[in-house]
């Protein structure tokens, strides 16, 4: 973020919590403002404090990053009402895509293929049973306000629906403050393939090709790459056309991602749209040679898109591995602590995005993502070779990390042959 700002001659202001006083992002910024105590709701989710920090620093714009308030339409609106520019999509688009049922309705109306299921909140278990009967078991229950896999439940048989419905309702209410659920047909062994889209204020929308993100735990990504290996040309064309059409239908501006499930026959279905920059955006940057954050800043300033669709090409292959403070040998349990030793690789085709350094505290209060390793090459084989080497040379001590797991993924035949799907981990793939 700060790199992109510096490139455009913009000054940067960081906000930080008490726990992050010594964090690298605080030093990297031209200026930094403390906004509250360690728990996120007192700092990074505290809208009045963030707006006050922006006012004191006389900021012109706020970039919400890709966690915390980045998909809060209320925050985006509050930023605009405070007379500042929100670097991201319009609040209205964030709100529409944040309501997963509304998103299903809108995308279906725009001609984007969605999974068979309900287009309204299923208010009670009888209604859920009726929808499940119609689309056929197995089905999946999802929270209307969902995300990150919270409140999702697979249901294989009619007898399992009532308890699953009750549990998912409770989880949704607790996590999101609204209990609304919807029902979709469950797809076996799908791939998760997403399309990066980008729009400007004039209504132009382009895509920046796809990312394959099937290797996940708890419905959250661990490895992403582009191009998606072995994706049939017809499927790819269908995905990018649907993504651009869907984004255009809702007047989408700035960076966003349309997520799809791709089934074993190459059919695809809209999953959801992330109305923000994503964690895995460096993959697309390395493949296309474009800087998405610079593009976000320019688009937020009202500039038209600087490229035509035909100019955005996949020049290289790139892979990202997410290094989390989690213990893969214990079901990816969180591993907070202090980083005692940190050694990161560098070299041709290697890019590191790290939020830690030796001595950093990895707090229980925040997401366990420590750093991202990105490798790119002229071919996928070269990118894999560089990633293998990068993982071998990465040392993080003091907390458990996903590095040993990532090494096994990258070395596996399934990964190398591109035979991946989202249920591999729960089925025991890549175990030590």
């Amino acid at each position, binding site marked *: 973020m700060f790199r992109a700002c510096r490139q455009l001659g913009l000054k940067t202001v960081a906000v930080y919590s008490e726990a992050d006083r010594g964090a690298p992002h605080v030093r990297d910024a031209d200026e930094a403002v403390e906004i509250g105590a360690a728990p996120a709701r007192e700092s990074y989710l505290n809208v009045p404090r963030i707006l006050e920090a922006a006012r004191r620093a006389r900021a012109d714009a706020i970039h919400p990053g890709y966690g915390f308030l980045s998909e809060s339409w209320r925050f985006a609106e509050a930023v605009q009402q405070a007379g500042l520019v929100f670097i991201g999509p319009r609040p209205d688009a964030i709100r529409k895509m944040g309501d997963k049922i509304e998103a299903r309705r809108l995308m279906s109306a725009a001609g984007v293929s969605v999974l068979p299921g309900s287009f309204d909140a299923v208010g009670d278990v009888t209604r859920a049973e009726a929808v499940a009967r119609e689309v056929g078991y197995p089905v999946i229950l999802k929270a209307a306000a969902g995300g990150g896999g919270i409140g999702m439940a697979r249901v294989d048989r009619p007898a399992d629906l009532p308890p699953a419905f009750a549990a998912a309702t409770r989880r949704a209410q607790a996590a999101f403050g609204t209990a609304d659920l919807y029902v979709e047909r469950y797809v076996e062994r799908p791939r998760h393939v997403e399309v990066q889209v980008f729009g400007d204020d004039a209504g132009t929308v382009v895509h920046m090709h796809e990312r394959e993100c099937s290797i996940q735990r708890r419905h959250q990504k661990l490895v992403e790459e582009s191009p998606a290996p072995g994706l049939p040309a017809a499927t790819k064309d269908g995905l990018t056309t649907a993504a651009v059409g869907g984004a255009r239908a809702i007047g989408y501006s700035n960076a966003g991602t349309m997520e799809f499930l791709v089934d074993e026959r190459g059919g695809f279905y809209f999953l959801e749209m992330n109305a923000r920059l994503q964690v895995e955006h460096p993959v697309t940057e390395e493949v296309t040679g474009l800087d998405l954050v610079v593009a976000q800043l320019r688009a937020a300033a009202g500039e038209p898109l600087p490229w035509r669709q035909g100019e955005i090409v996949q020049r290289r292959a790139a892979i990202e591995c997410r290094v989390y403070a989690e213990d893969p040998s214990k079901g990816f349990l*969180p591993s*907070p602590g202090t980083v005692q030793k940190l050694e990161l690789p560098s070299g041709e085709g290697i890019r590191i995005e790290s939020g830690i350094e030796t001595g950093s505290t990895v707090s229980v209060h925040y997401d366990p993502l420590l750093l991202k390793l990105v490798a790119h090459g002229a071919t996928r084989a070269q990118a894999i070779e560089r990633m293998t080497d990068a993982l071998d040379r990465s040392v993080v001590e003091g907390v458990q990390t996903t590095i040993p797991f990532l090494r096994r993924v990258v070395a596996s035949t399934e990964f190398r042959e591109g035979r991946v799907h989202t249920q591999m981990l729960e089925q025991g793939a890549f175990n030590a």
Partner: protein
Amino acid sequence: MPEEIKAHITGVVFQITTKPGDRVAAGDAVIVLESMKMEIPVEAPRAGAVKEIKVQEGQTVQEGDVVAVLE
């Protein structure tokens, strides 16, 4: 024989799901910890009655801290 139930990870007590006197089965959540945006139950190692809850919601516990005692 009373048995101490210890936290298996460091986290913040998110929810206390039992109270003294409650009967629990092996594997039931006695309390729920929150760590790094994940909710992680601390489970009863065996069946029994809860004798004492040693923590409060919002409290930070370290790995190995006693959070509850079974009768």
